């Protein structure tokens, strides 16, 4: 699979701020990959996300998104059409208080013929499991539903790459699970997914995990490699998942387990096998 995103030595600092939000960040993402990007607040995650959607101009370094050079101003709208971005607060993403109207916003901006739009809206709503909500008011939905509508709003433009920038941080546990299920399903359907988060548990289901710290890529690898490495996580400023913490705590108290579990299910298996 070719690299659909390739960032090389990206450097970015916001105007009026000497600190570099990105400080030589390099990363490649394969087509159809599910990449989780983890880092604590202020590590440069969102700055990177905004580069991937051409919302920020490349100051230094190289960046190709959807095989297009992001430094070419002529590519800005093409990149935005091929990469959909969902933000943290669903309330601040709606342009209309009616679901169907809001979903039509993206396609209209990208010049999709008017007669094609209803079909796109229907497909986008089906993809987030909210069919039939066209005429609903966005104000009356739950947090998780709002965020799924925001995702549908992005899907209506039919992008290949989806970037989720801390989309679950304002949701209750149920809404969070629904949104994460939706993200996983979209990946299965062939979209390239970049999930940005500081909740480490959300990265467990990813193909690959990248850790970002102080605007640099600290490490990247499988979830098992990344999330069970206590030292690495400590340097990133993240807390390991509960099963991993438990594994190391038990080990320090003399209980030897055959492997380090990553999920609660694995932990259950492991504990049952002890019996």
């Amino acid at each position: 699979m070719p690299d659909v995103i390739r960032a090389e030595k990206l450097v970015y600092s916001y105007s009026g701020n000497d600190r570099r939000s990105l400080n030589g960040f390099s990363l490649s993402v394969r087509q159809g990959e599910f990449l989780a990007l983890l880092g604590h607040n202020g590590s440069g995650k969102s700055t990177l996300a905004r580069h991937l959607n051409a919302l920020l101009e490349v100051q230094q370094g190289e960046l190709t998104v959807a095989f297009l050079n992001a430094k070419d101003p002529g590519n800005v709208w093409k990149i935005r059409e091929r990469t959909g971005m969902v933000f943290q607060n669903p309330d601040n993403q709606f342009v209309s208080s009616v679901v169907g109207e809001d979903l039509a916003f993206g396609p209209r901006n990208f010049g999709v013929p008017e007669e094609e739009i209803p079909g796109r809206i229907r497909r986008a709503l089906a993809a987030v499991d909210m069919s039939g909500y066209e005429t609903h008011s966005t104000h009356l939905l739950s947090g998780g539903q709002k965020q799924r509508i925001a995702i549908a709003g992005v899907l209506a433009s039919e992008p290949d790459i989806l970037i989720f920038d801390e989309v679950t941080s304002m949701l209750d546990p149920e809404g969070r699970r629904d949104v994460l299920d939706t993200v996983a399903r979209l990946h299965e359907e062939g979209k390239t997914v970049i999930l940005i988060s500081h909740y480490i548990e959300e990265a467990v289901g990813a193909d690959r995990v990248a850790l970002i710290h102080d605007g640099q890529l600290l490490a990247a690898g499988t979830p098992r490699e990344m999330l069970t490495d206590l030292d690495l996580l400590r340097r990133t400023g993240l807390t390991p998942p509960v099963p991993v913490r438990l594994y190391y705590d038990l080990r320090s108290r003399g209980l030897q387990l055959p492997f380090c579990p990553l999920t609660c299910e694995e932990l259950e298996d492991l504990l049952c096998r002890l019996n």
Partner: protein
Amino acid sequence: MRQLPVGLYQPADSVIHRLSGSAKLLCMLLLLIGVVNTTTLPGYGIWVLLTALLIRLARISPGTALGSAVRLKWFFGVILFMNLCFYQPEDPWVRWWIFSPSYAGLIQGIQVVARVFLLLAMSNVLMVSTAPLVMTDAMERLLSPLRLIGVPAGLIAMILSVAIQFIPTLFEETDNIRKAQTARGARFDSPRLWDKAKAVLPLLVPVFLAAFKRADELSMAMEARGYRGDTQSRKKKYPPFQTADWLALLLCAAVAAAFVMIR
């Protein structure tokens, strides 16, 4: 959510909902012309009936349609009082200090109140029955001739519609901040004006900050979804008016013309 200051769109399937947005806006303008040209009591009676009919046709509850007008009762009171006392100082009932209440003033006051009340009720019907983006399109369509003289019609329409659609969100936020400050001892309910004013000021700052933050995030999200403002060469084809649209326009024009001529 607490009481909302403006009518908020409520999706439904009614004759009024199905009319095209620009036809509805034009009808509203025609009715406005009719209302301000009404001078007789039976005339206002007809308007009340017409407004009731509109509310009925749009299938919205009278509470929703009249709510914002009813909440302005103090404003109406002031208008009535001002007109009563200052409208016609030449021929007053009594004269006391600067006040000179007169019959003409009373009639004028009642008229102004009735007009504002009717217009509020009718515009509520319009707002409740028209989706914000439809309204944006309608405004854009009606403003588009002004493009020739350099008015950014699309931009104005978008700003208005986003502003309207954020009112409930900001209201909720104000309410939350108010509750949080009440919990920490702010006195919004104090009968003393000075205490009230002191309590409101710290409320305004966070509300404004939050609004700016929201505006920033929304503009980012809109850009990410391909919005380019008015520079976009969006050749929008507006759907032609349907029979119902023409009929509504014709009716409103006839009513407006009748009232203008009677006057």
